[in-house]
């Protein structure tokens, strides 16, 4: 039985006997099998049997153009959220890894603090900020930048903004962990060898931080794709995400077979995209810095 757990970045030593750490992950493994693997198989069965074998749910998905359209929208919004999180989170993580440990601690607390508030609460906070009578509009009118309140809420931008704010900590934390582990002497060496700051960042720091980028991007993307409450509350009529569709199939239409098919299609798409992304970044890493 292959049972070793691998910690990213740690050196792995081959060993014959079962690693005792296996027993540590055993409870988690049992939990995952019963509450993840088994249900996924049930969903798989649900989508293909009704009660005899059928592919009608999948036919429906691909024939009525609207479901593909919604899936595409979901992926685009999630991608936008992930990219925005990366752009916003990278400099913050860089700063956190660079400052004194005391300042870093304060920054970490500030980053984690919003995670202690529910998603619903944070979404409502955005509604308060972006609304017609909201703080942003009031400020704009007070500053005489606009005459009438502008429409901020119930737009795709509002969905992306709110989701980025909600998911940002999940990008920053893995990025920070990776950057903290980067050997700063390598940067000095690069400078001594004559590279400018930009070149040093591009050829040394960025490639070394890719495991963090990967982890953060994957986390944010996967969670975005299943977002439900935020787009429903701050989005416009076109911001239907696939989780909302699955919910209505389950609770109002009671069409569990189709909901199961939707879930599986979503899961497959997610795995493909994550796989592609890892492959792409993985190559980039070797081009950049040799062996990490």
């Amino acid at each position, binding site marked *: 039985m292959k049972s070793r757990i691998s910690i990213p970045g740690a050196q792995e030593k081959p060993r014959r006997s079962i690693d005792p750490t296996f*027993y540590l992950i055993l409870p988690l493994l049992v939990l995952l099998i019963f509450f993840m693997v088994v249900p996924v198989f049930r969903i798989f069965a649900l989508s293909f049997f009704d009660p005899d074998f059928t592919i009608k749910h999948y036919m429906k998905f691909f024939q*009525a*153009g*609207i479901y593909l*359209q*919604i899936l595409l929208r979901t992926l685009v919004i999630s991608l936008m959220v992930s990219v925005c999180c990366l752009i916003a989170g990278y400099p913050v993580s860089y700063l956190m890894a660079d400052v004194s440990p005391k300042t870093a601690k304060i920054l970490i607390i500030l980053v984690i603090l919003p995670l202690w508030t529910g998603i619903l609460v944070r979404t409502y906070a955005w*509604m*308060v900020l972006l*609304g*017609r*009578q909201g703080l942003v509009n009031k400020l704009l009118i007070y500053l005489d930048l606009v005459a009438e309140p502008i*429409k901020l*809420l*119930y737009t795709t931008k509002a969905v992306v903004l709110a989701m980025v704010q909600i998911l940002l900590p999940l990008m920053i934390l893995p990025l920070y962990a990776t950057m903290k582990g980067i050997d700063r002497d390598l940067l000095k060496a690069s400078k001594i060898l004559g590279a400018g700051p930009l070149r040093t960042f591009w050829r040394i720091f960025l490639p070394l931080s890719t495991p963090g980028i990967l982890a953060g991007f994957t986390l944010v993307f996967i969670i975005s794709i299943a977002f439900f409450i935020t787009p*429903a*509350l701050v989005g416009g*009529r*076109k911001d*239907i995400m696939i989780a*909302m*569709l699955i919910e*209505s199939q389950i609770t*109002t*239409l*009671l*069409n569990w077979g189709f909901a199961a098919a939707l879930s599986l299609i979503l899961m497959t798409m997610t795995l493909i995209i994550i796989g592609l992304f890892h492959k792409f970044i993985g190559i980039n890493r070797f081009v950049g810095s040799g062996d990490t």
Partner: protein
Amino acid sequence: MKKILSKRSRIVMTIIVAIGILAWHPILAGAEEGKTIVYNSSGGVVEQVAKKVFAEPFEQQTGIKVVFTAPVNFAKLKAMCESGNIEWDVTEIGPEDMIRGKERGYLEPIDYSIVDKSDFLPGLAHSHAVPAAFYSTVLAYNTKKFPAGKEPKSWADFWDVNKFPGPRSLPNFPYTMEIALMADGVSPDKVYPLDEERAWKSLDKIKPHVTAWWTMPAQPAQLLADGEVDMAAAFNGRITAIQKEGVPVALEWNQQVLLLAYNAVVKGAKNKDAAMKFLAFMVKPELQAEWVKMIPYPGPSKSMYELLSPELAKTLPTNPEFYKLGVVRDYQFWAENEERLMEKWNAWMLK
């Protein structure tokens, strides 16, 4: 791995758990044929009030004890009926589930020789269920923006964006087709059978003026309270609640769309006769009046209004004066067409 529990202690644990489950289980906790019925309700406040208003006096008068379970769950009803292990006698049930339940044979026909339907509002005596609670979708508006004398009085006014300018909110569900038809001049009693073509055309007209399409019942009231929209199709109970909080909103009963939940007897219920008696007991006007004083969703009784204060009566959708202005949603139609229309609705939303 070392065993954490010895064999004996595992047996003891199993017995303790088993006893716990048995003691907790309502059927086994004190069942005696005909002396106890199980009423599956939505739980929470509804259960507390139903206990006090219906179950306690029922036990005093008939000696039949009512045991409550929750929540309302169609999948569980289905499982019970298919396995033949019927745990509930009476269950609260949503309208679409009621239609499905009737068609699949999960519900007993109501014995109207026991349940007195003469006091029901017209057209409500369903063959397999008794109305339990009404609410309605009404036109609600900001009274600062539209003060008395200048207020919208119909869905046609809601659609009239020149006379009544301002952002609006409508439900993000195909049910909105009912409202669209009335806005286009269809009278409430002619909404069903639903003229789909006409509804879509009418919806196209209002689409650019709707700021927010709501999906959760609490949303429209919040949108009105925040000044996010000036007009919305909203549930009456939520509007009455924010009115009490001092939010400047009012609602229009004209062309309201009435919705309701039912009580039904489960097919093969162990105590069918007692269950029918309980249904008959719950629709008594004096108890209905007590119920509605605590839960703003009235039952089917019309004579209970003689027992209510005018202040309370004017907040209720089944007030005979308002009831005749509205349309009761035809759930038979939706049970047959909802899936198709939902798909069309989503496509229309994305256009």
